[in-house]
């Protein structure tokens, strides 16, 4: 792509990453959450592919797959944290430990929900990013 597109991409990528992370982080407080933030982060991957070409991202494909597996694994493990009571029981809420705050509207509250938001966000980002990357990598270009 042209130098204009590449320069704008270099400026936009950090901003989009921060916005995606914000949407995931505040998923239990404000509109948004794991899926929405993950979609925002995946659009960063699409932006990079449009600006710099898919070939430069070919080596990242395995790490994207690893991140996707990590997200799925993290979600299931967090669901098993509360297996003492029930599957998906929020064992961390109100426990004064990690994300154990009890104040309404506090970022440090919600128990396993913010961590699950991160798991879903990582999985959605890696999954949708892989889809766009594989669409760009496979098959020849046909300029008719």
């Amino acid at each position, binding site marked *: 792509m042209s130098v204009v597109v590449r320069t704008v991409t270099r400026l936009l990528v950090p901003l989009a990453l921060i916005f995606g992370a914000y*949407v995931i982080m505040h998923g239990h407080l404000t*509109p*948004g*959450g794991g*899926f*929405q933030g993950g*979609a*925002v982060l*995946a*659009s960063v991957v*699409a932006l990079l*592919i*449009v600006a710099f070409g898919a070939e430069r991202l070919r080596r990242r494909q395995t790490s994207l797959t690893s991140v996707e597996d990590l997200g799925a694994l993290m979600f299931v493990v967090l669901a098993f944290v509360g297996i003492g009571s029930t599957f998906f029981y929020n064992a961390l809420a109100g426990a004064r430990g990690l994300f154990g705050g009890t104040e309404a509207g506090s970022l440090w509250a919600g128990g396993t929900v913010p961590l699950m938001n991160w798991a879903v966000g990582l999985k959605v980002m890696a999954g*949708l990013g892989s*889809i*766009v990357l594989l*669409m*760009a990598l496979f*098959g*020849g*270009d*046909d*300029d*008719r």
Partner: protein
Amino acid sequence: MTALTVLQVANLVLIVAGAVLTVWLRDLLASVVALAAMSLLLALQFYLLQAPDVAIAEAGIGAALTTAIFVLALRKTRRKEEEE
């Protein structure tokens, strides 16, 4: 009628116009751009109808990712629609 109602109705008219344009255009790249514009206006409509959660998802998926996937698919196929 309040200003908000006027904005919503104008936005709905533009959404329908974008959808009609998407089907009507023969150049598929222009069609994809019309679809992306329609998705963005739809996200604005969701926001006006006080569903910001859906609006973020629609803006991320509809306007950004499907457009990228459609453009990448177009690069690997033909740009013009053929007459049957």
